[in-house]
């Protein structure tokens, strides 16, 4: 500023146009550009890394695998799909593995929902602030330690002479355990070598993913709605079926998406616990790693994706997202 004009005609801060000020002013005036810049990184991640790799996998599922040379030929064919669903020579038959995995995922999802709902309901409705904090911590705590460590810990807990057996013995519940292990199809030599054991461990590791969404949904149901229902003559059970469940169902669906898809894809738990029979994840791992049949591995990975898409569209049709 020159000395012959001692009184500045405008606010000096507006005159000093630093580059940062210019940019921020420009972005303020062009809010679309600002939003675009904010979304650039997450969109890059989502499109390139996530959808890109998903697409690459889809493309690979149509490649051809040469059994003699063990080479993947970049040629379009449906061989891998045929092999996945029809080839009876394969050991183990893929169809059985898919069935087994879906059954397990369904059982885990239902079990988790049944266990998580009362807990979430208690947390949302009755627990005081202190109790709520303790319960949140309790639900989240398992996520603080390594997944692998916890799975191996469970193997020890469920082993034939493990803590669980000891506990059930002390409680005089051994007949119940024996009865459970003798059930055809899901029983076995001990808890840690049976489908029941796999189910229990899945239930344990995915439980937080069910509790938190249900809890969030229940927190959003105002207390006055349950009061209004009982005011209109509805007994608690009726209120639960007609008001609480429909309004918190999106939370159950959200939770089930986690538990269902996580169980579909997991390959560590069934390989550590259980009968060492294949689950989808392990099968993919074998085809991709040991055998090198990339197209078949890709097909077997497409399977859970398709199952999840069907699952979501059914849930949508049932109106699970209406109350969102």
């Amino acid at each position, binding site marked *: 500023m020159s000395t012959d004009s001692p009184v500045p005609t405008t606010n000096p801060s507006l005159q000093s146009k630093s580059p940062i000020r210019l940019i921020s002013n420009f972005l303020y005036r062009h809010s679309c550009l600002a939003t675009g810049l904010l979304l650039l990184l997450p969109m890059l991640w989502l499109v390139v890394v996530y959808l890109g790799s998903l697409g690459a996998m889809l493309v690979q599922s149509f490649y051809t695998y040469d059994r003699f040379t063990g080479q993947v030929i970049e040629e379009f064919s449906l061989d891998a799909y045929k092999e996945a669903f029809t080839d009876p020579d394969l050991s183990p038959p893929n169809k059985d593995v898919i069935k087994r995995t879906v059954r397990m995922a369904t059982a885990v999802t239902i079990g988790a929902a049944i266990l998580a709902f009362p807990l979430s309901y208690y947390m949302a409705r009755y627990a005081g602030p202190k109790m709520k904090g303790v319960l949140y911590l309790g639900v989240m705590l398992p996520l603080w330690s390594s997944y692998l460590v916890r799975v191996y810990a469970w193997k020890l807990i469920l082993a034939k002479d493990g803590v669980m057996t000891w506990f059930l013995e002390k409680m005089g519940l051994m007949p119940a355990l024996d009865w459970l292990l003798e059930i055809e199809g899901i029983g076995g030599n001990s808890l840690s070598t049976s489908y029941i054991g796999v189910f229990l461990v899945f239930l344990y590791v995915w439980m937080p993913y069910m509790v938190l969404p249900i809890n969030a949904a229940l927190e959003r149901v*105002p207390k*006055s*709605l349950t*009061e*209004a*229902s*009982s*005011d*209109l*003559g*509805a*007994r608690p059970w*009726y209120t639960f079926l*007609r*008001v609480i469940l*429909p*309004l918190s169902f999106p939370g159950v669906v959200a939770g089930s998406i986690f538990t269902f898809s996580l169980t579909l894809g997991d390959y560590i738990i069934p390989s550590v616990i259980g009968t060492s029979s294949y689950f989808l994840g392990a099968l993919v791992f074998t085809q991709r790693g040991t055998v090198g049949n990339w197209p078949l591995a890709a097909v077997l990975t497409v399977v859970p994706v398709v199952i999840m898409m069907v699952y979501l569209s059914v849930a949508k049709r049932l109106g699970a997202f*209406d*109350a969102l």
Partner: protein
Amino acid sequence: MTESDPRQVAIRFTNVARHFGNVKAVDHVSLDIYDGEFFSLLGPSGSGKTTCLRMIAGFESPSSGSIQLYGEEVSTMPPYERDVNTVFQDYALFPHMNVQKNIAYGLMVKRVPRKDRERRVSEILDMVQLTALGKRKPSQLSGGQRQRVALARALVNHPRVLLLDEPLGALDLKLRQQMQIELKAIQQRVGITFIYVTHDQEEALTMSDRLAVFNHGKIEQVGTPAEVYERPLTSFVASFVGVSNFVESNLAYKVTGESKSFTLRPEKIRLTTPDASIPADCYGLNGTIRDVIYLGMYTRYLVDTEVGIDLTVVVQNLESTSSEVFAARKRPVKVLWQKAHNRVVEE
């Protein structure tokens, strides 16, 4: 209405108390509400009026005392067994059901046959003037429409008593005044006992047959709107219901010769010239107008009297203009009021 009212008692509170920890939300309240009355529970927030309503509905149970509904003891009965329905402050409409289903909910619970149910729902929709909106979801309705749905949902069950928890609180002034008139008309048509919780004294005065004024968990006065307004028993009632001048006993002595504190409504006081004579049935005090508040329809004057009493005087702007009114500031005046308008109250 007196103690020996021949009408049937709808709700009887006998020595009802409700404590939350150390807080006495309701402190030994006894009250009779008669069949077919529009009865208001009036009081500031935290005075126990809503807790009383919730105890009638069954959402809270009394720590001690008894609540009778048409002679039947209900204090330990769950809400779903009581023949009362509530209009909630936040309306509490079920967001996943449309208007018809919301209204039919109580009838569904009671397994009323479908034909009968549909007829009653459409009748009540007509009554609250929502005939065309039956298929809408609550989220697609305005505040006033939601309020009507909430009312319809409760009334369709023909409860013996309808409880209304500040139902007009969320509406704007014009709509609120319109709904006040409608609610009163509906109550007279259906003949059900209405118990109405509000903190708005004007609303309580407009709508009620009788009202109870609550303060700190206790009832300060029960009576008709005119009784409560004209003859407040306590200084709290006088100040909460309408505006009042409260004159403490030591100052009251300088006016009346008795050291009993009294209240005086501002519209009962006249302003005259300082040299005006005082009629035999009136009290008169000289003073100065300290401030003038022009309110369009009337003007509120704050007068400092020579004996140290500050009085609020309200004068209708019958012929005076705003400039004349403002010119009165600092002017010496005499205030006059009939002795009969003094209300001796408990402090």
